[in-house]
């Protein structure tokens, strides 16, 4: 359910955000892939998430795509299409990458937002001031002060 946690607290945290980072699979995609009989793979991204990310950029909030799970570079393909490839970071340690970006931007943890969906996001979600999980029902969303009203690949950012 949307905003099952304290919405006023979440709004207060969101106001401080200067860097908004998110995962790719399970956030921009429904965490699924199509595989054809030849082994070719296809991934579905919800196109209005681009509008969400670009709206933040237009309001001087930096975006970072933090990707540990892309199989064929699909996270980069999407970032390139949105001209956000400069902010695409393939990494195995998301929290360490956030720390690096924090230093580079001269901000603190409370000014970072992070949107994730899985165990691999937990460390990053614990680190930041504003942690958001997709609506996928799971105990992992309980880590977040806010749950997005939309499921992944349906406008989560």
């Amino acid at each position, binding site marked *: 359910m949307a905003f099952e946690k304290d919405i006023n607290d979440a709004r207060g945290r969101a106001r401080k955000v200067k860097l908004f980072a998110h995962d790719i699979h399970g956030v921009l995609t429904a965490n*699924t*892939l*199509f*595989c*054809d*009989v*030849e082994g070719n793979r296809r991934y579905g991204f919800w196109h209005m998430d681009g509008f969400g990310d670009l709206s933040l950029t237009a309001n001087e909030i930096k975006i970072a795509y933090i990707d540990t799970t892309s199989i064929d570079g699909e996270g980069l393909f999407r970032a390139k299409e949105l001209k956000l490839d400069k902010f695409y970071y393939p990494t195995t340690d998301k929290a360490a990458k956030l720390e690096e970006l924090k230093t580079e931007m001269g901000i603190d943890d409370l000014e970072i937002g992070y949107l994730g969906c899985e165990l691999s996001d*937990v460390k990053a979600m614990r680190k930041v001031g504003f942690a958001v999980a997709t609506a996928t029902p799971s105990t992992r969303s309980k880590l977040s002060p806010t749950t997005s009203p939309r499921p992944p690949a349906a406008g989560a950012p």
Partner: protein
Amino acid sequence: MGKSEAAEKARNVRFVILDIHGVLTDNTLYYTQDGIKSELFSLHDRLGVKALVDSGIGVSFLTSKISRADEQMGKIYGIPPESLWGSSAKIGRLDEFEKDSGLKDENICYVGDEMIDLGIMKRVFFSVAPADASEEARGVADYITAAGGGKGVVRELAQFILEAQGKWGAFVEQFK
């Protein structure tokens, strides 16, 4: 069967055999205008397989014929080629595996969704069906996942088995 009885059975599991169509996929075939067929798989299940394997529980795919798509998904999920089993005689394949591995029915979990799976589901100690499996498969299953086929069945099952065995916390620890 209640959840606590299912958890009791899950404690014995040492190996999980997964049907593909309707379990790892949503049981739908997607065709392009050129007749190229695709199937939809869940990436949540990649973590489910990792959780099982990292915790010492083996995993195999069992379907009538392993396609190139299944081989690709095996690579993505981290299933070795020798654990991609193509056989219509599912019980015969189980017999062969038990003979080779020394494992017994009591150690095996099978996940299936259709009538072709009923024989093996009745035989193994712990049988599981996705939420949208056939009525017959759900009827014989010890546990029915909340997830439907292709929507994270293995992710959910892995957590259920590992929580029953007291291993989930250790797996999660690596992400903290």
